[in-house]
């Protein structure tokens, strides 16, 4: 697979939110406002890319050579949790503005299943290091796209005249479902 097709595949065709249904919690949780959605998107992009590269290295150098593939999940979680912690520390020192912009969303990424999902799927698909990084960037950009799309819709829906029973999450879920169907139209692109 060429890097370009990996990119298109992870952003549009196999969008992690709309096609694989991973990361639904932050997708619904932080999509109230455009501002927070963007912050979360940037934070996820950053952490997913780093985590994928590091987990790939650990998988190849330690787990595969010792035949400990069954430890994959727990080791990856360990890596992601430490990485998020590290990024938080570093960001607080180096860029307080970015740190306060991301705020509470940074530690929340630890439990974002996209980060773990991307890392594990990359190993399963037997990608090499460059492909892994590309796929991780694509996946998080796809998540970013989904988050920004739904946030811009929700900002409009907030002031729209919606039947009382559907106000809030119900209408958001309907919108997300419709958007998922729309994304199904990308199938066969790659």
């Amino acid at each position: 697979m060429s890097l370009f097709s990996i990119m298109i595949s992870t952003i549009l065709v196999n969008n992690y939110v709309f096609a694989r249904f991973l990361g639904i919690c932050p997708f619904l949780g932080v999509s109230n406002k455009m501002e927070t959605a963007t912050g979360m998107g940037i934070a996820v992009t950053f952490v997913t890319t780093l985590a994928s590269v590091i987990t790939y290295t650990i998988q190849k150098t330690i787990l595969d050579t010792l035949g400990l593939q069954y430890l994959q999940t727990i080791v990856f979680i360990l890596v992601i949790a430490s990485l998020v912690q590290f990024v938080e520390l570093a960001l607080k020192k180096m860029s307080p503005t970015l740190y306060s912009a991301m705020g509470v969303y940074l530690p929340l990424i630890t439990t974002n299943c996209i980060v773990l999902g991307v890392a594990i799927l990359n190993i399963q698909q037997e990608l090499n290091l460059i492909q892994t990084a590309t796929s991780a960037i694509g996946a998080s950009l796809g998540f970013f796209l989904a988050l920004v799309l739904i946030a811009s819709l929700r900002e409009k829906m907030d002031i729209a005249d919606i039947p009382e029973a559907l106000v809030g999450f119900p209408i958001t879920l309907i919108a997300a479902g419709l958007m998922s169907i729309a994304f199904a139209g990308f199938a066969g692109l790659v």
Partner: protein
Amino acid sequence: MTNIINPVVVLGGLGLLFGVLLSIASKIFVVATNPKVEEVLGVLPGANCGACGYPGCAGCAAAIVEGRAPTTACTIGGAKVAANVANVMGVNAGTFDKKVAVVKCQGDCDKAKDKYIYQGIADCRIQSTLAGGQKECTYGCLGCGTCFDVCKFNAIRMIDGIAVVNKENCTACNACVLACPKNIIELIPYDSTAVVKCMSQDKGKDVRGYCSTGCIGCQICVKNCPVDAFTFENNLARINYDKCIDCLICVEKCPTNAIDNMSIVSEKFAKEFAN
């Protein structure tokens, strides 16, 4: 045996490695925080309402400690919180200026002419995107009650198509000021009396054409004010509340009654707010 030892060593080793790395990182990336920020945060209300203009109480506390905000920055908390904050900061409390929101428009259904009949979603933010709203006056209150919706303190009523603030309930939280798409809600000192209730910057002739109670820029108030509290720019009179002595001469003299006496208004609408 290696089947047991290997996973333990790998997992334990990785955990130890990351733990050490993180503890080193926390030493390298240590950020000195002023302990006063925590103390100030402790005496703030903690509602994270954002009325002070900072992102939450933590942001406000940091701003106060760094001197970017006065000790009276918390408008919701009032004099009590301001005194506590001043206590923590070790400065004199100073006087807390209680404020109140006022809707600077009186062009209700009878007084202001309509440009068209709006039948869309009842929200001023949406109405204002449609040729500036249904009123011929492009500055006035649209009357859809967006400020009423955002008011958490039951201080705003829609009366004859105009938003009116109840002085007693208003906490000057700034929510309506931010929500109003026409920017006609303002915070003024609580004990002020005379208020120019018009925001129109059109020429007097035009204002006369579409509203019977707008500021027509005649400057009678400016000429009659004994303390020169009025400034006049962009065809609109403004009151400087540092100078105003509440003589109410301007209220009397204004030919279109665009200048209103705040204390009477609250009595006039007391019945509306009672229910």
